[in-house]
Structures are given as C-alpha cells and as structure tokens.
C-alpha cells in the first residue's frame, strides 16, 4: 500500500464523513485549499515516497523511570560491582552469559535468543555530557536530543517529520501512550496518540459539528503557538481520518497467535498487526513504565525485564513471519541508568549512563563498546561515565535506516556507529 490511498481516504473522508449529513451542502472553501496544499506539499517532499512494503520503520521504546542498566547488562566477576551492590549483585549468579565479562539478566531470555540469532545490538555506556538526574528533564533531553536546550523544545522525531515527511498524513507517527511524547512535538501536525484502538472511535460522524469550523489542517505554526481552538479542530480532523484507517487496517489483519499478555506485549502486538496490514506509519513510540526502582527492586525489575524480553521475542517472530524484520528497527532506551551503589532500601537511586538496545534483522549484532569502568575513581558523582553519546545512536538510525539527513534533524554532526 502506498501512502497515496491514505490521501485519497483523507480527501473522500473529509467530503463524505465529516461534512456529511446536514453539512454536506457547504464544503468550506478553506478545506479544499487545505487538500490542495497537502497535495502540493506531497509533490515537493524531498523524501522518496516509500512503498508500503519496503519503507523503513523505526520503533522507539522507552523504559520509563530509569532502567537499572547495571542489573540488565551485568558485569561478571567484577569486584567493584559486588562491593557496590552487596544485595543486588545476586543477579550475577543466574545471569545469561554473553562473554566472560558480561551477562544478561536471567529474565531477558528473550533478548538472549535474539542476540544469539544476530538480531540484537547492545550498546554500552550511552549517555550525554553533564547528565541530568531528574526524570522529567532527562526524558526531555532524550526526546529533544538537545541537552543544552531550553524546556519546551521540539522533539527529534517532530523535527524529522518536519524535515523529511512534509505533507505526510498525521498517522506517519503513532504513539501508544496516554499523552503525546515530546519526541513527536514539532512545527508540523504529524503524530497520532492513542492507547486503546477500541476506544479510538468516532461513532456518529454525521452529528459532528466540527466540519463547520475545521481550521487549516496543515497546521502552520508550532503547536504551542497555534490557538487551542485550532489545535482541537486539527486534532479532531486528524483523529477521524486516522481512526478510520486504523480500523480498516485492523479489520483485514488477523489476530496474532501466541503473543504473551502484558502492557508492552499488547502494544507490540498492535504494532505488528499495523505493520502487517500495511499502515503507512513510519515511527511508532511506546513506553514501558515502572523502572524507577528506589526500593526493593529485585522482584519488580525482574518482572519488567521478563515482560520486555518475552514481548520482543514474540514481536520479532511475527516480523519474520511477515517478512518485515529487515525494514524495522526498534530502539530501547531509558532516560538514565541508576546509581552504581545500591541504596539502603534494596533499591537504586537515579544515575547516568546505561546500555541501549537496537533490534532488527541485518543489524550488526553483538556488544558495541565496553561496559564503563566501575572503579570508584572513574565514576562521575557515583555514576558510570558515558563513552557514547545517544545522539550518535539517533544519527546512525536516521542516516543508515531512515535514509534521512541526520545533521538537519539533530543539528551538528555525529560520528555514526556501525549498526
């Protein structure tokens, strides 16, 4: 499916759906202008309009709360580690060995199997200079890729949409979250956020009055500068079109068997069906919460990692079955790692550098970069120091996978990683 049908859908939808019923007699002239502009923007788009079957897809998965990277990718036979974590280092005994020095948490058997099959790259020691230990600020930094920026910056995906996807429909980006991720915030109106497709329905379009006052749906100007009314009208229009496409796609895509049940698994299941159904979405964002393990983390951390690994295993099996594994990359990141020393409550406080994971078929699998030193003299205020900037990871994904210009999106130039 090319993206053209979605424009057709959009056009016919606006005419027959939103302006349906009592309003059909008067299509406001600016709506025609909007459609005209969408078409023009599409013609001018610098991006090769991808065919639905081969366009690259990027999935961003945030482990929200700050994943304890040190108990995820675990140093083996390391005295500094054992001393810093008298209680929490017990996970070492059962770790799934990758090399003589490094093992994965035993709950990540799913990751281990993807690693063995050559579909998982583990990037150690990823962070950014002057790490911020606030959840919210650090999340903002990862979402905007602007550690120096002021609060409220556009997201890196928002800038990608603006630079590389002009004229693309709103559902080019889909976020399965309660609120839109800052990564999607940008000058353009791209990005649809919903949690549950069953609730994402507009049952009686004919009664809607929104069509009477739909604004310029190409949304010139930044979201925060546009008036709230414009924003509502635009969201209303985008939502109706996307909801329609989503349900059409799901209707023709069968349920996937043998998927585990957890929040993260349900989200990946939905994404797998949308990819299989040919939805034109390029970027998906989802989040798994609960990683802020200040107290008694042994059990809760193990459960989270189990859900994460099992969901990934099922997702990639489905991607393989569909033949889509080669065009999908999935980035797993967290806003920060956790303090090297455990605290007095059998938990860990906010830290800095941590591993990130990139998954997909054809990736250069294995371990990238060393685990940062845990020697107390090498720590930065008790935290591991980073040796790889997260923007190198972003730049590599933009350039190598999305075929986008990384320096336009991120600003500056970054040494690419061999992913």
């Amino acid at each position, binding site marked *: 499916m090319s993206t053209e049908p979605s424009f057709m859908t959009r056009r016919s939808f606006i005419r027959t759906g939103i302006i349906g019923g*009592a*309003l059909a007699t*008067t299509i406001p002239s600016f709506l025609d202008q909007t459609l005209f502009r969408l078409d023009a923007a599409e013609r001018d788009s610098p991006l090769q309009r991808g065919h639905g079957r081969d366009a690259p897809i990027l999935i961003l998965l945030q482990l929200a709360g700050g994943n304890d990277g040190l108990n995820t990718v675990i140093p083996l036979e390391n005295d500094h580690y054992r001393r810093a974590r008298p209680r929490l280092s017990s996970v070492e005994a059962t770790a799934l060995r990758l090399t003589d020095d490094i093992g994965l948490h035993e709950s990540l058997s799913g990751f281990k199997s993807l690693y063995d099959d050559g579909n998982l790259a583990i990037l150690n020691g990823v962070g950014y200079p002057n790490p*911020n*230990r*606030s*959840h*919210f*600020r650090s999340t903002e930094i990862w979402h905007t890729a602007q550690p120096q920026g002021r609060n409220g910056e556009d997201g890196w995906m928002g800038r990608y949409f603006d630079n590389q996807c002009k004229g693309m429909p*709103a559902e080019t980006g889909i976020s399965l979250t*309660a*609120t*839109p991720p800052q990564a999607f915030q940008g000058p353009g109106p791209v990005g*649809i*956020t*919903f*949690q*549950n497709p069953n*609730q*994402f*329905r*507009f*049952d009686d379009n004919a*009664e*809607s*009055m*929104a*069509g*009477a*006052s739909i604004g310029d749906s190409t949304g010139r100007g930044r*979201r*925060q500068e546009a*008036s*709230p*009314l414009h*924003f*509502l*009208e635009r*969201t*209303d229009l*985008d*939502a109706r079109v*996307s*909801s329609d496409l989503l349900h059409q796609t799901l209707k023709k895509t069968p349920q996937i068997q043998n998927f585990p049940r957890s929040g993260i698994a349900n989200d990946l299941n939905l994404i797998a069906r949308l990819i299989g159904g040919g939805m034109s979405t390029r970027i998906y964002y989802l989040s798994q919460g609960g990683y802020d393990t*200040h*107290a008694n983390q042994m059990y809760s951390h193990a459960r989270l990692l189990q859900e994460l690994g099992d969901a990934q295993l099922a997702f990639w099996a489905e991607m393989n079955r569909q033949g889509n594994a080669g065009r999908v990359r999935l980035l797993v990141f967290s806003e920060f790692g956790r303090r090297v020393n455990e*605290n*007095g*409550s059998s*938990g860990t*406080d*906010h830290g800095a550098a941590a591993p990130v994971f990139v998954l997909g078929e054809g990736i250069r699998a294995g371990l990238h970069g060393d685990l940062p030193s845990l020697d107390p003299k090498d720590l930065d*205020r008790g935290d591991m120091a980073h040796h790889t900037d997260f923007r190198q990871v972003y730049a590599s994904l933009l350039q190598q996978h999305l075929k986008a210009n990384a320096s336009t999106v991120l600003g500056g130039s970054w040494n690419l990683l061999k992913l």
Partner: protein
Amino acid sequence: MARIPTIPRRHWDRQLAAHLAVRAGFGPTPSELDRLEKMTPEQAVDAMLIPPPDPSPNPFPDWFAEPEASNRFPNGLSRREFQAQPPDRKQALRQEFNRHNRKQLEEGRHTWLERMVTTSFPLREKLTLFLHGHFATSAQKVQAAYPMLSQNQLFREKAFGPWIDLLEGVSKDPAMLVYLDNARSSKRSPNENYAREVMELFTLGEGHYSEEDIQSAARSFAGWSIDDSRWTFTVREPWVDHGFKRFMGQSGRFDGRDILDIILKQPQASRFLAERLWSFFGSEIHNESVIRLLDRQLVESGYDLTSTLRVLFLHRDFYAPDIIRGQIKSPVQLTVHLARTLNPAFSDYKLLSQACRQLGQLLFQPPSVKGWDGGASWITASSLALRYQFTDRLLKQKGAVDADQLFPDRSITRIQAREQLFDHFFHHPLREQDQGAFDRMLKALPPPSDWTRNDTVHILSSLTRQPQFQLT
C-alpha cells in the same frame, strides 16, 4: 502593596463573570451567573474567595472517621505481626485488604467529585485539585485508601496557606512519605527521592539546587517516617542524622523543617509558586508582569493564597481575550462542569469517576510525581473520541437532561433556544461561522415547543461535540 491594574468596573459583564466562575471554580449555574454578573468585579472575586458559612455539606464516607480506618495492615496488625503470619494466611489477608481499599478509594473519588459538583465554595475544591496535581501522590504505590483521603483533607484544610504549613504537612504526610520513599530513609542510607522532588517539583524547579543540596536535604529528612501499624507520622529517632549539613550556602544541624524554611527564603520559591498559580488558574502563556505581582504578594503576605489569588482574579490580564476560553478543560473540569450545568441532583458519580479515569485524570492516581501535564496533552486522537462518547453517555443518563428546566418557556424561537443553550453551557454566544451549521441542524427538528427529551439530548450531543466545548 503594589498597585494592581484591575479589571475596570465598566467592562464587567456576563462573559467576564462566567470566566471568573469557571476558573475559580468548575462553572456557574445560570442563577449563579446572574448573581455574579450584577456585582462589581471586587464583589464577585470576594464571592468566590470568601468561604460561605457552611461550605462543606458533604463529608467523607463514614468509614473515614472510624478508628480502624487508619490501620496499615489487616485486622490492626503491626508490620511485624503481619509479616509473622503463615504465607497462605498472609496472602489471603492481603488480598481481602487490598480489595477493601480499592473499594474505599473509589468511594473517596465519588465523594470528592460530588463535593466539586455541589459545593457552595468551589474555589476550595479547585485549589485542592491544584494541590493534588502539584504534590502528586499516587495510590498505585501507596496501596491504601485512608492515607490518600487524609492527604486530600490536608490539601483542603491548608489550601489557602500559609504555604510553609502546607509544605510541612506534605513532608510529614503518610501517603507522601510512602510515595517518595522517605518513610524508609535513614541516617545510614538516606533515600534521595523526596529530597529531590521537594525542590524540583514542589518548591524551586529544576536547576535551582545542587546535587549536594539534595544529599543534605535527604540527610535532614531521614527518620521522618510512619508508624508500623497505623497511617500516622512518626519520627524514628535512631534514623535521624543530627550531624552538620551544608544546604544552600548555610550550614547547621538541620532537620526537615529547617530545610523547608531555607527553601522558602529563596527568591525562586515564591517565583516558582507564582508561575504555577498563573499557569493553573490563568494561562500557559507566560505573563511576566502578573507573575511578578503574584510573586511579590506571596512574599509580602507570608505566602497567603487568599490575598495572592485576589490579585490574580482582579488583574486586567486575567480577562484578556486570549485567556478567556484559552484553556483546554481537564477531564475533571469537563465532567464536573457538565454535571453542574445539567441537573446536579441526577449526577452519576460512578460515571463521572469512570470518565475521568478513561480520559486520563484518575483522581488519587496521577501518572507520575510531576502530576498531570495538562493543557494540550489532555487531547489526543483517542481522548477526543472518548470525550464525545462520555458526554453522550452522561446526557443519556436518566434525569440528566431536564428539558423543562432548560426551557421554562417553550414558546421561544429556535434562535432564542440556541442562544439560551449557549449561555447555559458555553456562557458565550456561538461563533458566527458556526451558527449556520447549528441552525440548519435545529431547523431539521420540530419547533422548540414540540421538542421531546430525545430531541434535546440530540441537540446537546451536537453542542458538546463542538471543539469549543473542550475549552474553558
């Protein structure tokens, strides 16, 4: 006190009065609006700010006052006694206890929503809601109803300040002590979670303290904990760190209260609160001159919120055209406003609570310690769909729409009916470019004298699907 550029008396009209009522409360009924419109701006602001003689007709559920309500463990056991139970028994007790607590918590939501809909002193409830988002604490971690409702009562009682009393109350509040882990913080291994958030989110904002300040604050709060068997504050003396601490350029044998006092002496503390108040009651659009006035008023009044909010509600800029109807309704504002303007006697609080849950504002369960982001983040593709679905369900509830009450005089024209409806639910006329479509819809119906209940529900359903209905 600095001169406030107040809203001139001659500008005061029905729309400005409605704006005051929706921001300082949850929205006026037509008779409340008639009353506020006839006052001067000063009288109207005081009518919102000054508690009426009996403002709280509706206390918490009965169980809240009973002694066993504050038990932390089943059957009044202490932590140790509970841990000593055989595993099977422990699990059974815990399950039953959790089920009981979930039920109580939901009752608490209904009572609070009912209070918001029916109170004669809405500003107190609005401030309580503000404080719930500001000092966000989630039952998801606290796992009990009593401390959540007890914290809610703390917000209500101390809503108008002084701020230091509220801060100290929050720092000693059992729900907060559990939520941000201070309950288990000891001299030997201080937990930094509360120490960080009290500065980052509650008082100063990110970037106005150092990592050393966090560590010192954590040491100073160490030992502030809760009782082993009841939801009450207690100081665990062996966990207290009596040593010297350096904090924000001072040093001494500080305890938690000293830390809070030092924080509030920072110019950034009053500035931060002023910004938060303007953003909640006024607008997300920054207004430096209003914020400065609020900041100064906070300092001069010793952080008194009544006089500070009087400055805000009287300020000319609070009534600027881009401020009026420039705020996206929170789920609570949306549901409570609709319940107040429909027939409050028939409000279904279970449905209201369920709607808030689905629309992303489950009371007593904010998504994180930052509270709800608010503003545009309330609106997503699916939350907009859900908002329409919810308003339809509320309108279709038995007794919710009372056509006789909405249209006491049925001999009106369609245009008059349209104007009455918009005054009642929007508190302002329909935009000119939308009138044509709305009038065509009315024209397809019989004249107002023949409207059935279904017709009225149909009209209100269309009206609540106007994107403008999401604004306040």
